[in-house]
């Protein structure tokens, strides 16, 4: 679904040849955010449930458990390159946050904020350059993240998107 949402975002952002309509740019931002949101949710659900076609209903049901704010908090921590002590406690000393994980986490935090502004803040004005470069950025982080081997660091990041609230308050 995420690639359809990115195509939709590109179409919306380029719909008006001259001056882009704010409504189209706002919807483009929202579609771009949801492309990344659903990509990350699907990645984690595949990890937990499995990747087979017959497991799809289980992945879809589990996908409903993800919370935007929890994901933002987890990504905010990963984006800084170090995890708070309560989360990092017990991780192997060699644990590092790999570049593609930092990049996708940063992109998620940035886009979620812009999605809030696009959907709820009428005082915010969106620009085509920013929207189009964001769409490209999301394609790039998804590509990088997908190419990353299923290391423990990658699996832990994905698990944190679901479990962050419980982990961070221990």
């Amino acid at each position: 679904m995420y690639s359809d949402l990115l195509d939709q975002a590109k179409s919306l952002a380029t719909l008006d040849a001259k001056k882009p309509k704010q409504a189209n740019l706002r919807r483009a931002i929202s579609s771009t955010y949801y492309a990344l949101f659903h990509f990350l949710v699907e990645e984690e659900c595949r990890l937990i449930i499995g990747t087979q076609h017959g497991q799809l209903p289980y992945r879809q049901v589990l996908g409903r458990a993800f919370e935007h704010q929890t994901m933002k908090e987890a990504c905010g921590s990963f984006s800084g390159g170090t995890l708070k002590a309560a989360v990092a406690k017990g991780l192997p000393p060699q644990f590092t946050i790999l570049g593609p994980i930092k990049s996708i986490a940063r992109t998620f935090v940035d886009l979620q904020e812009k999605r809030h502004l696009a959907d709820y803040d009428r005082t915010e004005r969106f620009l085509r350059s920013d929207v189009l470069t964001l769409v490209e950025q999301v394609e790039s982080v998804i590509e990088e993240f997908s190419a990353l081997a299923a290391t423990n660091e990658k699996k832990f990041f994905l698990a944190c998107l679901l479990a962050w609230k419980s982990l961070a308050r221990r």
Partner: protein
Amino acid sequence: MSAMGKIRAALDLKTLELPEKPRIVAVEVEEYVDWYGDDALRVWVILAEEEDVAQISGKAVLALKNKIHESLLKDGIKAFPYISLLKASERIVSVDEE
């Protein structure tokens, strides 16, 4: 140096060593509070007018934004930078946009 002075120093185009492409003519920053009430920054990266946005790759955007984020972190600035790319000409507001 004030907190904002430290932030501006971290984002000084002369020392930031941004990738050559796309060409950037200015980096502007403001303090910001995000949707959840967390202290953050808004950063505007001003592209040169001759840049064709359709030709800027996602990798180039990512390299640029990561460089800005890392420069802030290197100087101990933990506020999240919400970064936007734009051309100065796009700032001219038109009444028929809505």
